[in-house]
């Protein structure tokens, strides 16, 4: 997993609440057995005027000119600014994979759906929760295309005018993200504890341990 320390990048504003995972990556793309290559299909139904299919070459597809990611001033954006409850719906990790593959490294919103939020951290994406008023203000500021600097160590966002906005990320997640650590390796450091838990649990609930 890519580590996340600081990021200075263009912001793309996506002004909609309750953006669900079907909108982020429509289900026909979930048929892939790979983990990469979802970026061209991110927000497929909003981004293109035709219907996308897996493995399709997107270079010549008709674009929805009104959709924010298709506007010239937001090309190369790595920070997504959006509204409440972003990522609701399914648990598909294809949603953060598509966002990451497209190039997004951070998402700013007043709130996120729980599973999506969790999945972001497993994929080197930083989801940042800010108060709705702050998000509102950012929406007003970004219209002409502007950059934010995100510092995960300091937990601050700096706007072009030099204003600092503080945010909070849970300590454990911040540590893992900043160091790009593999969760499984970290958990396996507790292998002995897992084994002794199993021994102790098997006394209380033997029926759970009879099939292996």
């Amino acid at each position, binding site marked *: 997993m890519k580590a996340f320390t600081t990021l200075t990048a263009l912001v793309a504003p996506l002004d909609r609440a309750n953006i*669900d995972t079907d909108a982020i990556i429509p289900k026909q793309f979930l048929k892939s057995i790979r983990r990469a290559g979802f970026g061209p299909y991110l927000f497929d139904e909003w981004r293109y005027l035709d219907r996308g299919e897996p493995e399709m070459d997107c270079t010549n597809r008709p674009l929805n000119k009104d959709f924010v990611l298709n506007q010239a001033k937001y090309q190369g954006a790595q920070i997504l600014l959006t509204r409440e409850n972003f990522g609701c719906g399914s648990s598909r990790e294809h949603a953060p994979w598509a966002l990451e593959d497209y190039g997004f490294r951070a998402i700013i919103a007043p709130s996120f759906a729980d599973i999506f939020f969790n999945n972001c951290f497993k994929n080197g994406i930083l989801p940042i929760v800010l108060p709705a008023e702050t998000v509102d203000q950012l929406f007003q500021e970004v219209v002409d295309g502007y950059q934010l600097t995100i510092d995960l160590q300091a937990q601050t966002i700096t706007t072009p005018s030099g204003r600092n906005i503080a945010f909070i990320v849970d300590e454990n997640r911040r540590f893992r993200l900043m160091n790009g650590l593999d969760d499984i390796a970290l958990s396996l450091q507790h292998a002995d504890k897992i084994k002794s838990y199993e021994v102790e649990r098997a006394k209380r609930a033997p029926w759970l341990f009879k099939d292996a």
Partner: protein
Amino acid sequence: MAGKTLYDKLWDDHVVHTEDDGSCLIYIDRQLLHEVTSPQAFDGLRLSGRQPWRIARNLAVADHNVPTTNRDKGIADPVSRLQVETLENNCKEYGITEFDMSDIRQGIVHVIGPEQGATLPGMTIVCGDSHTSTHGASAALAFGIGTSEVEHALATQCLVQKKAKNMLIKVNGKTGPGVTAKDIVLAIIGQIGTAGGNGYTIEFGGDAIWSLSMEGRMTVCNMAIEAGARAGLIAVDDTTIDYYQGRPYAPKGDDWNMAVRYWQNLRSDSYSGDLFDKIINIDAAGIKPQVSWGTSPEMVVAVDANVPDPTKEADPVKRQSIERALQYMGLQAGQKITDIKLDKVFIGSCTNSRIEDLRAAAAVIKGRKKAASVKQVLIVPGSGLIKQQAEAEGLDKIFTAADFEWRDPGCSMCLAMNADRLEAGEHCASTSNRNFEGRQGYGGRTHLVSPAMAAAAAIAGHFVNIAEEA
């Protein structure tokens, strides 16, 4: 000693290790696998050279991509076929039990878990699928996870979690005629919103919940995720214990007796309130049959109501989403719900494809035929065993006599990853759980309803107030 909620008990029973910041390593008793969210997890295992921690705690089934007709001919779509074959190969390689397409036990992952007794009260249960919340109906802590976590659970039999807060939703009293578990949960989501449960585990309680069958309880917990909660729970009672008696994977003999003693404690120590961070009381008698009109499960009203008018909404963000939804759905503000005409009807999904759902649908249509204006009615049982049971009861005959199509088990038109789908602009009365844009097919328009409502709508060609007819 202060009391505990059901969630507290389940959590405390599974903590392996606690970090300084309060995040915990939680032991996972059962992982369910399906073809869509597991291939990359198995790849990850292979790449790192790791083995599953406890192979027999995993159970796999293909459900999302499987065809619901002509099974013997295999899967026509090569991309779908590859995904299903990849699951088979991965299960073979690692020695994981899989119910393949030809197995009578095959079905939707959240239907077969309880049906087999593979998911039991008191367990922690995960699956790379958000509707894993379904299994909470049996007082199991069950929640959906992403693919990285599927790999994590395979490799360590644990997950890193932070405890959620406790919410109690109490549905008090008795429901009226024509009101089912589905209507209860849709009404709840309509009230608290799709983000209402974010950060919480919701325990559902109150007489209207406790008097539901296991099937009804599963319908309610299935949609906890639609209310934003990763997990829903319902306490153990005799209904729960009776349901599991004799299931293939359920404990036997002395183990059964010991399990029952343990399960009987799986309820909150008090439902009066002081144990929960948040309590919502709902009057069951006030719930009417529900129909969703928009593109989010919270966009739902009673069948005798009208489509909302965005100009009456003060909040600009909400007003905009109502306008967008009406446009997508091709509906007029103020239009009567009963005037919405249907093109297709889908009865199935992990929300409503169990035997009780099929019986409820059959009871409505007996002796009648689908409206000529309705192009297709799909009945997709949740598992091969449910299909068998329904046929033994003669339900398939009732459906086919009404010109409904009787299909093989799978997710089918719940998310249209197989060949069953809506065409652009079509309105569908669906017993599934999500009405997102494009969910049932590109441009398709989904109305979430109960099986009885879906069947009645198939006959009439539009929604009907089944509370009055009942």
